Each structure stands twice: as C-alpha cells, then as structure tokens.
C-alpha cells in the first residue's frame, strides 16, 4: 500500500531552516510568514489492509523517520 509520512518540526521548536526561508521570502516582498521546513517520505508498505499499513508506517515514523524530541509526524495511507 502507498503510504506517505509527513515529518515536521514540533510546535514551539525553533526551525532555523524555515526561518531562513521566511527571511528570503520577505526579501522578495512576499507576504508569507510562519515558514516551517519538514520532510515527506513516500513508501510502499506490504500490508493486507490500510490499518495494518498505518500501524507499520507509524512505527517506522516513530522509530526512524522522525526524532520525537523535536519532530512530529502524520501518516497518510493511500491505495
């Protein structure tokens, strides 16, 4: 099953990369603020149903794809 894991900086955690992008956007005159930089992982999980795929992807996200001290994640299961 196709699974997407989104990893973002935790709320309240300083994100220097997002802040640098925000400064550049401001320099270009865009009215954009609150930029946060994260990561997207697309993976295929060999599972019989969506719940199983979600559970496996959640474990992968928790253990490998994110560092829970500074990052939060969301799992989206597709077809």
């Amino acid at each position, binding site marked *: 099953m196709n699974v997407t894991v989104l990893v973002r900086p935790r709320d309240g955690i300083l994100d*220097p990369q997002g802040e640098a992008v925000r400064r550049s956007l401001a320099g270009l005159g865009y009215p954009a603020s609150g930029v946060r930089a994260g990561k997207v992982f697309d993976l295929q999980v060999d599972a019989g149903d969506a719940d199983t795929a979600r559970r496996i992807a959640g474990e992968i996200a928790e253990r*490998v*794809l994110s560092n829970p001290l500074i990052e939060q994640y969301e799992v989206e299961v597709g077809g």
Partner: protein
Amino acid sequence: MTRVGVVSYPGACDDRDAMRAVELMGATAVRLWHADPDLHAVDAVIVPGGFSYGDYLRPGALAALSPVIASVREHAAAGRPVLGICNGFQVLTEARLVPGVLRTNTHLQFRCQDVALRVDRGTPWLPGASAGDILTIPMKHHDGCFFADAAQLAELERRGQVLLRYDGENPNGSVGGVAAVTNEAGNVCALMPHPEHAVEEMVGSTDGRVLLQGLLDLARQPVAV
C-alpha cells in the same frame, strides 16, 4: 594494555585522528567496522566525528541503527565507557544512549574554530580538572546545537549530567550552553568539540588529553560482573 575501539563508518573522517590520539595516550587503538557487531574485546569505545551515511535523514540517525551500535549499547549497559565526538554525539543521541538531540546551528553556519569550554564540575571524565576550569578544544560542525526541552534540561542539570559548557560566546545556540553531557549512569559521555584534535602542542592545545585520559581511566576500572 588498554584497548580502545574506534568505530569507522562510511563517511566518518575523524576515526584515524581518534586512533592516533589513543595511541599517543599510550593505549591500543582498535578499528571497529560499522557493519560488524564484534567489538574485539575492547575496554572502551569512541564513536568519532564525520558525516556517517552522508548525514542522510538526520545526522547520526542511520548510524544509530548499524550493527556495531547494537554492540556498543550492550557495552554501555555493562557500565563500560563510551565517548562520542561530534558526529559520534549525534549518533549516541539518536541511539538514545545520551539525552537530547543535536540540531542545525541556530546561525545556520558551519563553524570551525577553537572553543573555550568551562568545566561544570569535577568528574572522572575530566581527571585533574575542577569546576570553573577552562579547556580549549576545536569544534567544526554545522549541526551542533544541543537541544533538550526545559524539563529535560532541568533534570540533566539536577543529576549533574552536564560536564562542559561553552564559555563566552555560544557558538551554535545550544540550550544552556551545553557542550558535553553524560548518560544517567555516567559511563557514556558525548561532546561536539574534538578532543582528539587537541593532543599535541604543535597544533595549539593539549586540553583534549584531559578527556581522553578520563576515558582511559574509566576503561581501566575493573569490570563489574
């Protein structure tokens, strides 16, 4: 003779300097390979600096999953000493062998410079040094901003797990100016600056010898069975 294992990863670059420093300190350096779980009967382990696995995912994250780290975990659980340097600090945080995490420097710059480190308290890791002493040791990193949340940091301070702090300018934005921490048991120590680059007068400072001597002293303690 005391045997100190130094882990080599694809992308490590300070493993040879660490081995040379160990030999200069009068111990035997043993190269450990990331894919080999055998620690070759070493008394202590150094997880050295570099860019293991290209710093992919997060610095140290993939190295923390390597076979050798599973064995380092057992070595640490047995109370034996482990020293993580720079990328090694990142590996040990990702392996949850020391607390916290290393993030991108708040100024987003790679910094390569000598740093003054203030000793927080007397500890077996810093033989001969006492609270307030300054050690000058070089750092060179982009992702050395130590982070722990306020509650975790307070707990580390309370337990005396902070060994060194940046004195004067905070070069990377680390919370509490923390430069070196230990695990709760005190046998795993990690820092961003490079003691193995400060062992000879010719290159400016020999203050790195203090920490390496601490590692060797701990390695020579009898093994608890």
